[in-house]
């Protein structure tokens, strides 16, 4: 697990994804049902937050990279899962 890791992408380019703590970089088959359920719940929370704000993007949402979801945020222990070994 390294900071500022670069992964190979399916469109043939390399892309820096910052830390690999982004859950969407992980092979989903490495996650447990409970871990995936927590991701779904987190997405539902973000939806409620969006609706409560009148279908507008709140400053809090703007400040958070919505393309990512941190493992810490989900309470997922990074050592419990294997992550992709992209090109660096």
């Amino acid at each position, binding site marked *: 697990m390294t900071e500022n890791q670069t*992964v190979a992408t399916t469109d043939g380019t390399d892309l820096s994804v910052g830390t690999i703590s982004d859950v969407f970089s992980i092979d989903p088959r490495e996650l447990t049902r409970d871990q995936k359920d927590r991701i779904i719940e987190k997405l539902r929370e973000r939806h409620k937050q969006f609706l409560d704000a009148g*279908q507008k993007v709140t400053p809090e949402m703007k400040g958070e990279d919505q393309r990512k979801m941190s493992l810490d945020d989900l309470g997922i222990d990074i050592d419990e899962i294997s992550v992709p070994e992209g090109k660096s």
Partner: protein
Amino acid sequence: MKLRPEDEALATARNPFCETLPTMQKAWDATSLNFFQECPRKYKFTVIDRLRKKNPPPPLVFGKAIHDGLEKFHARIAHGMPHDEAVKEVFDWLWENHGGSYNPEGKWVPWYTTDKNRNVATLLRTFVWYTERFKDDPVEPLVLEGGRPAVEVNFVFPIDLECPDGDSYLFCGHIDKLGQWGKYVVAQEHKSTTMQLGSKYFNQYNPNIQVSMYTTAGRVILERPAKGVLIDAMQMGWSFSRFERSLVGRSKQLLDEWVEEKKWWIKQAEDCAKNDYWPGNDASCSKYGGCPFRDACSKGPGTPRKMFLNASFEPKEQWNPLEPREVG
């Protein structure tokens, strides 16, 4: 609600092309009609030669993924699966099948693109948010004869136009869901876009080949005619997904006119096939974000164009709109 028996019999037809003129399509779906009307050469490359880009653009990949995911979701709900269970099953399917792939060393390579609006995270978010937004969906699927819910409905029916084989040309396609929405019977379709959702967005479906085709199909194959297509539109943003639903209807007069026009277009395709001449339509090159064959067409005809096509495109499986889609 039952499908007409003759339409069920036609559904066993499998060859979408004429036996006597193999480059002439006999069974026309909305997509192939769109290609031909847009540009006969684009149609030739896509439908006859089966060429696809080696690296499809993110909007195409994303659109297909979310469409397939929602189709699976609606099928599960229609067959009685509890909402939460259906969400979990399809969430897993989307992530495992569209969130990346395994490289030759067996390592997971996530689908990262430079498109900030269309990536793994926005795909999964859009799916979950859609299932929250339409949790108590008022669109009830019709029940077909035998108790089967009207989801994943394949249709095929003859039109009043003779093809080179001596029988009729066919219209065909695949409707995600036929449902009851208030007092209307509607076909339901999902569309993703980065456009703001409003009247300007929905106006693009009036007129529109797919809406007219599905509404015509609903009128032909059902005992009760369909009012139109209910478009579930999804606006993709970097940090949000927004949804709007709108019914796009068609009068019988408009549909009759539409069918007559399609017959004219199919005769044009017949001329192209008979003469093996597929002219380009340079008024369409810039539409829809630019035609994928634009660079090929800017090369000289013959060898230079063929070389370019070989480098950037590859032939895929035969375009067969008669093949029933198994949603699973």
